[in-house]
């Protein structure tokens, strides 16, 4: 299962989708991907940054939603304190 995790006041909010099912055109999986992409764009528009995270690898910045990513973490907009 792939995950989009949005860091927020609840810790995080997670949206999951099954990439294998999506590959074979499963409508539920495709709908989950569309929902994840919508949430991704919504938070990007608010200034959030997105990163792909995989075990044992450094994080990578993500500009566009990647449905093949294992895990995407979005952090809220930051400012100098």
């Amino acid at each position, binding site marked *: 299962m792939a995950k989009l995790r949005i860091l927020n006041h609840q*810790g995080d909010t997670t949206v999951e989708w099954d990439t294998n099912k999506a590959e074979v055109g499963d409508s539920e999986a495709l709908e989950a991907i569309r929902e994840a992409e919508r949430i991704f764009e919504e938070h990007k528009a608010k200034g959030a940054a997105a*990163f792909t995270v995989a075990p*044992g690898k450094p*994080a990578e*910045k993500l500009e566009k939603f990647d449905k093949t990513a294992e895990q995407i973490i979005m*952090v809220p907009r*930051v*400012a*100098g*304190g």
Partner: protein
Amino acid sequence: MMDSVGAALHWELAAWIGIAILAAQFVAILLWVLFGSHNRGLTSKGYSAQLEAERRAEGLLQETLSAEESRELEHRGYLEVRSPSREGRVYRVPRGRGMVSVYEGSRAVMSLCVQPVEWIPGADVVLMHKLMIEANEEDYLKTANQFEPGYPYYLRWDRRTGRPV
């Protein structure tokens, strides 16, 4: 005769004023008890929601860190994140809220302050720093306010040795 009637009216008026004051105090206490209890309930709910958020954030942080990074954070109280662009530079991200210290070699070179614009749990803040440094160091440094190393602890630092004097 008229004087005694006037005095009686005076005392009656004073008694009514006293009763009104007592009644107002009673109503105030009643409101405090009712709304005070209600507020305590909300605070307690808010506190447990915050604890749950901290627990979730800690889980995500532990999932993301390697075993060695988790141990380091637990024992030292900070996470060292290596600069992807500058050899020998490390960022020490504190577990609690606070400034990130930047070291080159064993020398502190600056302190950085970067915060999310909305409240997120402390473990999420640690993760936020790690992700931004690893994947977006240049923007991270542009966003951060930079201070002398050791700020705001008012230590005087020798910039050559990176040690307090």
